[in-house]
């Protein structure tokens, strides 16, 4: 039943999620739960060599295996185009190399697919993989980005001499070098930002059904961006009109960036389904997820920071080898350029900065956006080197940060390396609050006292900034900077004649709770009961084109699109109310879901009554179209720039090198908060991914290009027992970029946590002369630092 009771204000309310009842009762519908009549199952044979020529593939035995329906190789799929690289930042145009559905003549990493078996069930498909014979001619392998650029290194692609995909710079080179030469103090450090594996708990998976009658594909996909996948698959890979492909994302079991991209297997299942005229399902095993899905980070960086003796930073020069893997993934070139280089100065006012990035091909899995995407790498560089400067000068790390913060009066702030102006910020209160929560002065006394007893305590700070809601399209879409496409977001809002409000969005939640937060926005703005608002997403048939969910963009961009549609619906409702109440439009007030003539709230028309009138449509003002229905394509005028300070306190065991994370305090400023429960949850999860990088995680390839950390047995995801509970607080500096003042919260924790934890461990060992350690800070590495 629809009610007309006005709700209490929900923006800012920590309500529990409406998504949860089905997920906690086992009624979720994830990709592996999709089962269609006549459905076949695919299993993919992947190259065991990191670099090899394919001389011959014999699929005969596999084809005759019981239950096997077909076996295809790359040659069978030659009609499919290579996958597109959508974000061609950094001038990569002439040396773009992207994967095909299956490799044809040569494989370039150990995950490269070379054949696919389609069978009646997955067991049969997996069995038949072992019956495919492939003759490989192994070729030399290189896995390290710096080594790959050296003369004589194995070459991956003819169009990229020395494996260099791009050389990209930002900032002022001459001025920076001059300032470094003149600086009273210069600190230098090489830092490794190790390769990570995103590891959503649900792997990737796709189910394709080709309908010969309509010549249409329907593809169910575990995806963060089904509209983008439809566009890129249809137009660039399959070569069919966009309207012939429908993409549907059911419940998505996490993504963390890895499900933004177009992958070969999407094309494989689409192709096989058309060939066989039956639905085809492929769900990735975890092993495949580790070798064949994109990885993140993998930078080798040299950094130089110049300053005055009293700690004022004058200059920053950064040179980075960014390992992009064997091919370019969908938006790979944009990550170590726009999202890294242009954020390198962090929260500090640095008059001279210059960044040089070499994007490099190696015989490894593709590297693309992983939670934070460029911003964690940038934050790590600046937050580590600022601590090193503090150590060099004997200054307090908090004090040196305060001294160099961009002051509140400088906003909007141009950071000098080509980022759009930082929209708003007030960095010192967040730092001060975090220090207050950890009782900074007391900690220093505790640390000194503990050292007397041979105990190693450390405290690490990270004052971060990130760029969220990346837009506007005229900036991010410009050839050279961007991907030749927009980054706006869409929403449609309809008030049905029953009074139910249906919101469809181009955003694609995969754990963020949009069905809840977007309904909170609409409930307040439209003045209708929360339970009458339905948020739909994920099906390209029935939602407006949108770019999807990543980069902490959904509230700031997708949410604002909804907000704007609601405003337009209210305007139409006021016009209609004026007509029905026989009053002038300017005299109509819209309040709590009701329209009335100013001063006469007792004679009101509710939004539900107006929706009915608008829907039946026989008493509308002249020229008004029926229905309360509006679609917005919202292109923000700027990005948003959340910030904050995180503090980690660790104890290091001098005997074993084990790091115990004792306390973690996070003070974040993500602008206005729609649902604190959900925002806190995002921060918690983000922190643990950052802690994971600092202490546990790291993808390791051996010199032959074999992924040594190829399962969850070898790749150390953080566990509950290794972590404390977190202490969270907020400051609120609303974003002036959008009408709700929201900024974005999805990546803040990950960006801040790695430097905070590493800074804490280095602090614990600083009296032993340790100034830097590369992640992950596993016991052996820490023990060696103590004992050498």
């Amino acid at each position, binding site marked *: 039943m629809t009610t007309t009771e006005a709700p209490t204000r929900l923006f800012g309310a920590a309500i*529990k*999620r409406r*998504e*949860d*009842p089905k*997920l*906690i*009762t*086992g*009624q*979720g*519908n*994830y990709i*592996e*739960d999709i089962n269609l009549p006549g459905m076949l199952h695919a299993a993919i044979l992947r190259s065991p060599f990191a670099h090899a020529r394919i001389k011959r593939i014999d699929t005969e035995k596999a084809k005759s295996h019981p239950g096997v329906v077909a076996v295809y190789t790359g040659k069978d799929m030659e009609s499919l185009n290579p996958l597109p690289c959508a974000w061609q930042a950094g001038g990569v145009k002439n040396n773009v190399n992207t994967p095909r559905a299956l490799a044809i003549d040569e494989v370039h990493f150990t995950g490269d697919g070379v054949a696919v078996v389609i069978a009646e069930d997955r*067991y049969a498909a997996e069995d038949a993989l072992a019956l495919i014979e492939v003759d490989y001619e192994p070729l030399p392998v290189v896995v390290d980005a710096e080594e790959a650029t050296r003369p004589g290194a194995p070459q991956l692609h003819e169009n990229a001499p020395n494996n260099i995909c791009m050389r990209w710079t930002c900032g002022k080179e001459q001025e920076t070098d001059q300032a470094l030469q003149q600086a009273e103090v210069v600190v230098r450090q090489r830092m490794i930002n190790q390769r990570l594996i995103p*590891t*959503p*708990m*649900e*792997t990737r998976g796709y189910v394709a059904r080709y309908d010969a009658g309509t010549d249409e594909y329907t593809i169910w996909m575990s995806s963060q961006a089904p509209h983008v996948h439809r566009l890129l698959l249809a137009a660039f890979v399959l070569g069919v009109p966009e309207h012939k492909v429908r993409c549907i994302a059911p*419940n*998505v*079991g*996490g993504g*963390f960036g890895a499900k933004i991209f177009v992958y070969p297997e999407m094309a494989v299942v689409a192709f096989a389904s058309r060939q066989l005229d039956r639905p085809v399902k492929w769900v990735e*095993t*975890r*092993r495949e997820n580790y070798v064949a899905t994109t990885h993140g980070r993998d930078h080798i960086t040299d950094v130089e920071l110049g300053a005055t003796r009293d700690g004022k930073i004058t200059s920053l020069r950064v040179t980075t080898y960014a390992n992009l893997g064997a091919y370019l993934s969908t938006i790979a070139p944009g990550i170590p350029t726009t999202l890294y280089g242009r954020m390198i100065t962090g929260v500090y006012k640095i008059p001279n900065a210059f960044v040089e990035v070499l994007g490099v091909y190696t015989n490894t899995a593709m590297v693309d956006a992983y939670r934070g995407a460029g911003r964690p790498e940038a934050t790590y560089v600046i937050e580590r080197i600022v601590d090193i400067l503090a150590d060099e000068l004997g200054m307090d790390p908090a004090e040196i940060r305060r001294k160099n913060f961009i002051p509140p009066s400088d906003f909007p702030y141009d950071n000098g390396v080509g980022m759009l102006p930082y929209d708003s910020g007030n960095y010192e209160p967040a730092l001060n609050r975090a220090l207050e929560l950890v009782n900074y002065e007391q900690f220093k006394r505790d640390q000194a006292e503990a050292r007397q007893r041979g105990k190693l305590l450390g405290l690490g700070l990270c004052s971060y900034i990130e760029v969220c809601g990346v837009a506007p399209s005229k900036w991010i879409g410009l050839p050279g900077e961007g991907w030749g496409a927009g980054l706006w977001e869409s929403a449609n809002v309809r008030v049905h004649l029953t009074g139910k409000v249906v919101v469809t969005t181009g955003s694609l939640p*995969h*754990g*963020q*709770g949009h069905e809840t937060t977007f309904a909170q926005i609409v409930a307040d703005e439209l003045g209708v009961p929360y339970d009458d608002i339905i948020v739909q997403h994920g099906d390209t048939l029935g939602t407006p084109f949108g770019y999807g969910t990543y980069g902490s963009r959904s509230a700031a961009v997708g949410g604002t699109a909804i907000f704007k549609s609601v405003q337009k619906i209210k305007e139409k409702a006021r016009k209609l109310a004026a007509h029905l109440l026989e009053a002038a439009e300017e005299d109509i007030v819209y309040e709590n879901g009701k329209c009335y003539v100013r001063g006469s709230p007792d004679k009101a028309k509710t939004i539900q009554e107006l929706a009915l009138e608008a829907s039946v449509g026989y008493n509308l003002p002249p020229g008004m179209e029926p229905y309360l229905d509006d679609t917005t394509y919202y292109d923000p005028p700027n990005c948003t720039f959340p910030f904050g300070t995180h503090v980690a306190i660790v104890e290091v065991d001098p005997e074993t090198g084990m790091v115990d994370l004792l306390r973690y305090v996070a003070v974040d400023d993500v602008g206005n908060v729609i649902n604190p*429960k*959900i925002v*806190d*949850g*995002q921060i*918690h*999860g*983000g*922190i*643990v*991914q950052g802690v994971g990088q600092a202490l546990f995680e790291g993808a390791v390839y051996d010199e032959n290009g074999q992924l040594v950390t190829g*399962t*969850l*047995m070898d790749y150390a*995801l*953080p*566990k*509950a*027992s290794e*972590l404390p*509970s*977190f202490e969270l607080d907020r400051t609120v500096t609303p974003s002036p970029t959008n009408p709700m003042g929201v900024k974005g919260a999805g990546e803040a*924790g990950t960006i801040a946590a790695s430097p905070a934890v590493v800074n804490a461990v280095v602090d614990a060992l600083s009296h032993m002369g340790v100034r830097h350690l590369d992640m992950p800070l596993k016991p052996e590495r820490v023990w060696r630092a103590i004992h050498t």
Partner: protein
Amino acid sequence: MEITVTVNGKTSTHNVPPRMLLVHYLREVLGLTGTHVGCDTSQCGACVVLKDGISVKSCTVLAVQCDGANIVTVEGLAVNGNLHPVQEGFWEEHGLQCGFCTPGVMMAAYQILQDNPNPSEEEIRAGLEGSLCRCTGYHNIVRAVKYAAEKMKAAPAGQTPTAVAAGSGEAVP
């Protein structure tokens, strides 16, 4: 091989291949897709179910090993439409985000509370040893388990909520 298994109180007999995993039996033969597979190596715990009252990783148990067994999955946690306190805790405390690991984590939490009705934070974290979650950072999962412990303690004597095998009317210990 023919097996007879009671799952969430309902007993049925099927002929299954000897190599079929319990998780595939539950998902593909019985259509109970609430139990998920998140890895190939028994690390993630998304597939945890109760076998004769003890939590097991259903990706590491063969279906034929469950002949005669009493299995409870996430679908059997709520009784007559009433959420189990563990489920309530996960909802109230925002103990899930994407929800993929959640069924297995909740079954592990159920076991933790069976073993120790009043666990400390440390004991809860230790009890979650076999479960991986990539979204929540475990913070709210710990709170969810605490919530469930409080709720179960507050239940009237003799009415401690259990995952009831509805068909047989027997409570799983």
